[in-house]
């Protein structure tokens, strides 16, 4: 196993969590919390990060069945942040504007997912098209 596979405490190392079932949601958010804590994020911020990862990973399970969460500690010269990429090759989202509206959900089981995650994070980007999967990239800077 390489240092990259272990990669939690080392700045700049990234972690990849394959998402195949609801138990992987827990694995992904725990890994994200561990990385945030190792990078000196405050406990409240680490919980925000874990919660955002939980929502993003659940979207993968619900809509795409399988996908991946990639976690990276980044540094812009002044401060550290954590970047979270949730990527899948699922059905994609036809109407992104609508998906970003509060309360909107096609599965009937979410509704606060994407707009909620956007509120928790400092930066949010989503790329998706029908049949082309979905890729959500978010970033939270350490305060």
């Amino acid at each position, binding site marked *: 196993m390489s240092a990259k596979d272990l990669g939690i405490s080392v700045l700049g190392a990234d972690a990849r969590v394959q998402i195949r079932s609801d138990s992987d*949601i*827990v694995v992904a958010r725990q890994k994200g*919390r561990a990385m945030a804590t190792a990078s000196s994020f405050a406990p409240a911020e680490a919980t925000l990060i874990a919660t955002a990862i939980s929502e993003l990973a659940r979207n993968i399970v619900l809509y795409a069945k399988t996908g991946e969460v990639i976690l990276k500690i980044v540094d812009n010269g002044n401060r550290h942040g954590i970047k979270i990429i949730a990527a899948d090759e699922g059905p994609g989202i036809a109407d992104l504007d609508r998906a970003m509206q509060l309360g909107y959900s096609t599965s009937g*089981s979410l509704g*606060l997912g994407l707009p*909620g995650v956007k509120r928790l994070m400092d930066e949010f980007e989503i790329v998706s098209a029908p049949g082309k999967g979905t890729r959500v990239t978010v970033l939270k800077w350490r305060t």
Partner: protein
Amino acid sequence: MEVPILKQGEYLIASIQSALTDADLLQLRDVLVEHVGRYRSRGVIVDVTALDVMDSFATRTLRDIAHMIRLRGAETVIVGIQPEVAFSMVQLGLTLEEVVTRLDFEEGIAYLNSKKGASTKLGSSLPRRTR
């Protein structure tokens, strides 16, 4: 990870010990709703102190648990929501609506006991009038 459920008199106590998957949360819901009938419980305490994250799914499932148990004729109180968990719930816009919450286990028991006192008084006055 199964949640241990203890029976204490007329109450059931579900003490979450670690992070729960969605399937674990749904199982907790089903077991509690069934146990309320089996043990003829008046109240249920769900202790979430050890829960790492309260995301939209966990919040909705806890709300469902409380509503279903109310429909079965018992009271539910959620105890032990940690400060940082409360913070992230507020940031996400998640609410437990009318579900009763208390600081910790002790306060949860005190709440259920106060509800019990109220129903006992009402219950004991009714038979007297009909006699």
